[in-house]
């Protein structure tokens, strides 16, 4: 069974839109409540490597794309989730699954102001210490 079938079988109706840009670039969306389960299945159960996550400010809300790499086939599986509440954006931290998620969550937190619930060490990673509180450089105006 291919890795994509495996993902579909394990996550079933948790998967929203499924989109294959080409055979090696797969995107699918999950509800933000299911992100921990989706990441656990991909990272722990199916052994995909976590590459990074992209946080984007969109008109619909904050979008986070978690990019996983399946190195056996060179496929890149990106899990999309949307945080609609722009005033108090928060989502479950994945750092409890693996330390690989720690830094990028700190980065998204300081750049977009998204709070990661349960992160063990949510402090600044890249911005200077004297950067003003509450200013998030990657937010659109």
């Amino acid at each position, binding site marked *: 069974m291919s890795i994509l079938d495996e993902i579909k079988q394990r996550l079933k109706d948790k998967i929203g839109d499924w989109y294959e*840009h*080409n055979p*090696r*670039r797969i*995107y699918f969306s999950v509800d933000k409540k299911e992100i921990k389960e989706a990441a656990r299945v991909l990272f722990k159960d199916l*052994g995909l*490597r*976590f*590459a*990074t996550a*992209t946080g*984007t400010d969109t008109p619909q809300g904050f979008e986070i*794309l978690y*990019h996983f*790499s399946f*190195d*056996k*086939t*060179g*496929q*890149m599986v*990106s899990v999309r989730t949307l945080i609609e509440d722009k005033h108090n954006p928060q989502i479950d931290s994945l750092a409890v699954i*693996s*330390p*690989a998620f*720690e*830094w*990028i969550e700190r980065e998204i937190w300081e750049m977009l102001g998204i709070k990661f619930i349960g992160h063990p060490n949510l402090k*600044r*990673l*890249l*911005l*200077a210490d004297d950067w003003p509180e509450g200013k998030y*450089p*990657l937010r659109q105006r």
Partner: protein
Amino acid sequence: MSHKVVIPIGPYHPLQEEPEFFRLFVEGETVVDIDINIGYNHRGIEKICESKHFDQVAFVVERICGICSTSHPFAYVNAVEDLAKIEVPERALYIRTIIGEMERIHSHLLWLGLAGHFIGYNTVWMWAWRYREPILDCFEMISGNRNHYAMMKVGGVRRDILDQHIPDLKKTLDQISRATDMFKGAVMDDPVIHARLKGIGVLTRQQAIEWSVVGPTARASGLNIDVRRDDPYAAYDRVDWNVIVREEGDIFAKTVVRILEMYESIRIIRQCLNKMPKGEIDADVKDIPAGEGIGRAEAPRGEVFHYVRSDGTNRPIRHKVRAPSYMNIASNKIACVGGTISDATITLAAVDPCYCCTERVAVIERPTNKKVLNGWDLIKLSQEKTERLRKNYG
């Protein structure tokens, strides 16, 4: 009872290009914890890219790293070509591959030299950097620049490799091949280097998976991953080469992986020079449609990841960049803890972050805040350990 001492390493040193700040917590000789601080070099490049058009972004991301300067534009053009489904001319793919592999050779030589310096093998340092020069000369011959070659372009490359350059390039490769034989012998047959690097700074296979490390750091821990083979781009699937993997996970394994990779790079370039077809070097790219694309490239330090999103205008609306050291440096938390201070410099250096700060180390005794050691002392400590081992081995 020994004092618990904090050793700050970094963040700035005028000789180094990438500031990072490590705080080592030591008890006696042993490192018990480490705190890693990065961000001193944060320039907001992802945000800057949103205000540049697609052609300009390649120049901006080239400035991310001064050593592996081509790997970021390489991953970026892969991402945009993935987004817009652009067919790149065959010859351009081969030229990209040659540039990427030349860069790997010079970057690995740079690492080898610094690693040699840190453990007291200054001859290795001098020789490694001496052989890095001819590669940089070749870059100058092809692109006009020793670094920041500006070869990558969405849809192709900016400059051709001319026929008259090829003999010189081949001659340099022969020279580097002989030099690599020498380095291989110097490292593999030296009992002191074995004693100094084996079993030090170990990252096990399981830890490598947990921390999602990439590149030589992962391959030295038994992870058989390499973007060049797994998600082939440029001309890597048209030539014959091997992925070097070692199981031990220590610094010796990382060194061996890098040295043997130089042979593979030489093999790849030689095949590319022979197989490279004549023809166009640039697809005429018009507009970039709305959509998103992911591009990856195997830099000397591991996978570079770029994500580009377009809304159909001439600028990306989101550009995410992840350098390999982002994953690798974090794993120092595992590799360093439990080792001794004299091994700390080489362990932090073994993932090949740009060495920043290691020379600005100061040991401060906690109760009095008195400086007892500075950066040179730490390198000296490391070098003295090698000296002692050398004497033991006669």
